[in-house]
């Protein structure tokens, strides 16, 4: 490897990155442009750019309120996932009758599309009496299968000797998880945090069905609600898109180091 020059690889990657970034730029540019966005030919540099589209968006919907709801739901989902996926992942590292069946069951659960389960899911949620609440929105997302397996992989990487030693010291299973497993699986934790944050932040159809009051809407719903008024005729829509995406991206960028290490570590001794 050393001998081969690296510039061709840089060149390719630069092209790839540009391609990946163009959509971001195009939306950003549209959200800033002052001219009629349907003008042809479109300009690469926004004409007399301004930020007023963002002002409009801010007043078009109760943005802070929606943001808060999104944050709460996301936090719940992340917390739930950390708790349930750790325990489940740990359980799967042990040998117990029917383990293979559980794994199969979990895998096949991944293949059930949500759109087809809306009605029963709604009935169940209402039966639990958490409709139109943050908990109700977070509930179906409190545990995700892929993440269970990420934990499983990372736990399996922990040397048996450590666990046995702990058991000899008479640590309870709980303490083993808390004191030994988790500290050694920080990357897996980061991965869980990020993936679930992403997924629940972006959830659309479920919050749409479970929320009645305007106060409970989340940002994605705001986007739909916004579309219905403005359609795609103004930079404001794209300003909104930017505003909805920025928080998620920010979180990801801040945590991506751990995230990527997380998946890696998860695999190295998976």
């Amino acid at each position, binding site marked *: 490897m050393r001998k081969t020059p690296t510039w061709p690889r840089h060149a390719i990657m630069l092209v790839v990155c540009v391609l990946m970034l163009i959509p971001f730029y195009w939306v950003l540019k549209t959200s800033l442009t002052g001219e009629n966005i349907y003008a042809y030919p479109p300009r690469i540099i926004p004409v007399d750019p*301004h930020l*007023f589209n963002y*002002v409009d968006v801010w*007043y078009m919907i109760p943005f802070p309120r929606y943001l808060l709801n999104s944050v709460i739901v996301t936090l719940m989902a992340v917390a739930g996932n950390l708790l349930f996926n750790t325990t489940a992942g740990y359980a799967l590292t042990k040998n117990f009758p029917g383990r293979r069946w559980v794994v199969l069951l979990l895998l096949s659960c991944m293949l059930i599309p949500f759109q087809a389960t809306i009605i029963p899911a709604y009935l169940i949620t209402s039966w639990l009496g958490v409709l139109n609440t943050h908990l109700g929105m977070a509930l179906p997302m409190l545990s995700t299968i892929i993440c269970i397996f990420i934990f499983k992989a990372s736990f399996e990487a922990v040397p048996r000797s450590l666990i046995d030693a702990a058991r000899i010291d008479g640590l309870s299973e709980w303490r083993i998880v808390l004191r030994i497993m988790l500290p050694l699986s*920080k990357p897996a934790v*980061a991965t869980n945090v990020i993936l679930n944050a992403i997924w629940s932040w972006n959830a659309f159809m479920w919050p749409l069905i479970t929320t009645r009051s305007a106060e409970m809407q989340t940002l994605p719903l705001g986007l739909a609600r916004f579309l219905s008024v403005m359609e795609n005729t103004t930079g404001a829509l794209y300003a909104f898109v930017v505003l909805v995406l920025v928080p998620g991206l920010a979180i990801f960028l801040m945590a991506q*180091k*751990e995230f990527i290490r997380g998946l890696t570590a998860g695999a190295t001794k998976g």
Partner: protein
Amino acid sequence: MSLSGSNGWLILRHRFVAVPLALAIVTGAWNAYVAINDGGIIAGTVQDPAGRPIAGADVLFFERSMLNYVEERRTRTDAAGAWRFDGMAVHVGQVEAIAPNGQKSERRQLRLWFKAQNTEVTPLIVREYR
């Protein structure tokens, strides 16, 4: 750098602390600025092409409804050609002046940074006025 952050005052430099902190500061500053400047006063003058003030001109304020702009407020300029609207809880609108002789100025698009921002509109010029 781990999610849990580092210890001591260094924690302020951890991005998971620094970024929200910075955001909080900016937000606070902005809200303070808004609180000081949201008197809801929109004012300006009406002039003829030569820059002489036009007294007694009607000034119309159009607010944005769903599809178009509709007239919401109307006032008259004083001897100095000055006009002023109070308690304007809007962040976008249009102003237009109609001189006593019925001639109109251009319709000026107003976009404010926040609702009820105090705004000094550059003079509205009525072209055909003599």
